[in-house]
């Protein structure tokens, strides 16, 4: 297993580096001159040229890329915000824990509500419980989260005054943002859980268990669910991605001082260093969580375990479901 974990960790390094290249390239080839933006519309051409020279914007693509990669990954310097002249990384470091906790708790809510919703739907297939669960899931993917957040804020903070409308002063402030941010992923997870559960329920070993007279409850929790969970665990990385992406706009809605808010505040000023740095950090965080999921999955899935296990023979449970989408 150590070999598997090492292999995964080594594989993530080039991905992270290439994300840096991709983000730099997007910013480089798109129109918009940072120097002109900093100096404002009335600046003379020579001023703009001098600032470009100072910022290194007159160099060729490869030199600038090299400088960006060196600064980002070796010196851990994400540049400075031109609005207040502060280091982007310092700002991000103070904000990062909030965003991470926010995204992780939203992901937790996704799991706690989404999976039971999907399993209930699958075990009551075509009944009213199925319809209700799937309707909830459908509404969850359809309603824009930030709009729902604003409406809930109107109801619970302005009208009823039960919960604070913004900030992170007490644990109560987190309730609405987490619910709103988990909605989309919860709906996705419920749908995924339903379909993978349905697939498992129809498989031969479940029929066999039924024929042997195993109780329906035991079939569900001991035989079907563990196998149905495998494809769900595989998509956990994705649900973190949804929650992390969600924080960007939801933090803006509820004024949570995380990376998302930092980024959206910089958008109106076109503070490129901030936007670029935030995206780099959030993407790396996403990659690292994907890595964790992959490693955890290696321990759960007997097939991967078997591939990397030492020669000691082990007995495996029969597993169905698609774990071949790794390519």
């Amino acid at each position, binding site marked *: 297993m150590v070999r598997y974990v090492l292999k995964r960790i080594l594989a993530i390094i080039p*991905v*992270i580096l*290439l*994300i840096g290249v*991709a*983000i730099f390239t*997007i*910013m480089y080839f*798109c*129109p*918009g001159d940072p120097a002109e933006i900093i100096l404002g519309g009335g600046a003379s051409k020579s001023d703009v040229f001098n600032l470009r020279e100072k910022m290194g914007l007159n160099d060729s693509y490869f030199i600038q890329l090299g400088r960006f990669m060196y600064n980002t990954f070796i010196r851990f310097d994400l540049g400075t915000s031109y609005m207040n002249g502060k280091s982007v990384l310092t700002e991000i470091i103070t904000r990062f824990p909030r965003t991470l906790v926010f995204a992780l708790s939203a992901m937790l809510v996704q799991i706690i509500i989404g999976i039971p919703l999907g399993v209930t739907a699958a075990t009551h*297939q*075509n009944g009213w419980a199925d319809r209700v669960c799937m309707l909830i899931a*459908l*509404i969850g*993917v*359809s*309603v*824009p989260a*930030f*709009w*729902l957040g*604003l*409406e809930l804020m*109107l109801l619970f903070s*302005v009208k009823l005054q039960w919960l604070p409308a913004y900030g992170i002063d007490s644990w109560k402030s987190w309730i609405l943002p987490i619910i709103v941010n988990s909605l989309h992923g919860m709906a*996705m997870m419920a*749908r*995924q859980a339903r*379909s993978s559960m*349905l697939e498992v329920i129809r498989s031969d070993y479940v029929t066999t268990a039924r024929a042997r007279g195993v109780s329906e409850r035991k079939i569900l929790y001991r035989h079907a669910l563990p196998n149905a969970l495998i494809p769900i665990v595989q*998509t956990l990385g*994705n649900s973190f*991605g*949804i929650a*992390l*992406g*969600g924080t*960007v*706009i939801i933090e*803006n*809605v509820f004024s949570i001082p995380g990376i998302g808010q930092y*980024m*959206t505040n910089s*958008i*109106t000023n*076109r503070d*490129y260093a901030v*936007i*670029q740095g935030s*995206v780099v950090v*959030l*993407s790396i965080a*996403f*990659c690292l969580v*994907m890595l964790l999921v992959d490693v955890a999955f290696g321990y759960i899935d007997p097939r991967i375990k078997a591939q990397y296990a030492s020669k000691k023979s082990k007995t495996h449970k029969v597993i169905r479901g*698609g774990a071949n*989408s790794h*390519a």
Partner: protein
Amino acid sequence: MHNESNPVAYADSNTGMPEKIKKQNQLLEVMKRLNKNKLAMAGMIIFILFVVVAILAPILTQYNYAAMDVLSKNQSPSAEHWCGTDDLGRDIFARLLYGARYSLALGVSAVVIGLIVGIILGCIAGFFGGILEEIIMRLCDIMQSIPSILLAIIISAALGNGLFNTIIALSIGRIPFTCRMVRAQFLSQRKLEYVEAAQATNSSKAALMFKQILPNAISPIIVATTMGIGGTITMAAGLSYIGLGVQSPSPEWGAMLSAAKGVMRYYPYQLLFPGLCIAIFVLALNLFGDGLRDALDPKLRN
């Protein structure tokens, strides 16, 4: 968006039936199944309704969506202004009608562009394999390592606001997704007998790719596209909300929400209507997409 259905392989795709008859039967069969699904039909009707509204917007309202009227700003819904007016005195109902054009344009074009590029790349990767496949798939890996909303934000911030730029920003995130799905379909189809048969009759590679394999691999792609339009519309609204994408005075629904946020305590209806429009529109698309998947893949039904 991530719930692409299992690869669909039709049992009759390699019977000896002439292609034309088989296709008609399939289409008829799908239509029949879809017709039975009331929710899906409701979704389709709502979607068509929105399209009609978007086209007929100038006929359906006497107001200009950009015309400001300082004397009647922030008015509550009334017989004169069905959805009230905003803080510049613009008629919200008219803005909602014209806004359907933006959402439709953004959602459909971004998904279609992503689809076309994704299909081409996916076909190449899935059909030729080898180094080409390796390069394309690794590029997809990188793109997908950036959460899609972040990718849209950074491209959109770099390109600047505007309808066309936003379409580009949203479509780039769709490419790796479609590409991966098309490739998976190709891999599962490539070894089937009808492909061998076509190879034996000396069809060209392009004909094999686009005439033989693609039609057989298309149904999950159609479903993902329908669902993708809904997701893209929500994302476009999110971009406009945070100040990217399409901005005021264009009546984009997300931009309207952003403007309404400041006054929502006093004029909650300004927040309600654009949000409802997005939610209903996207819900309709998802209902239709769900129904389409069930209709195209009888395996999933019991």
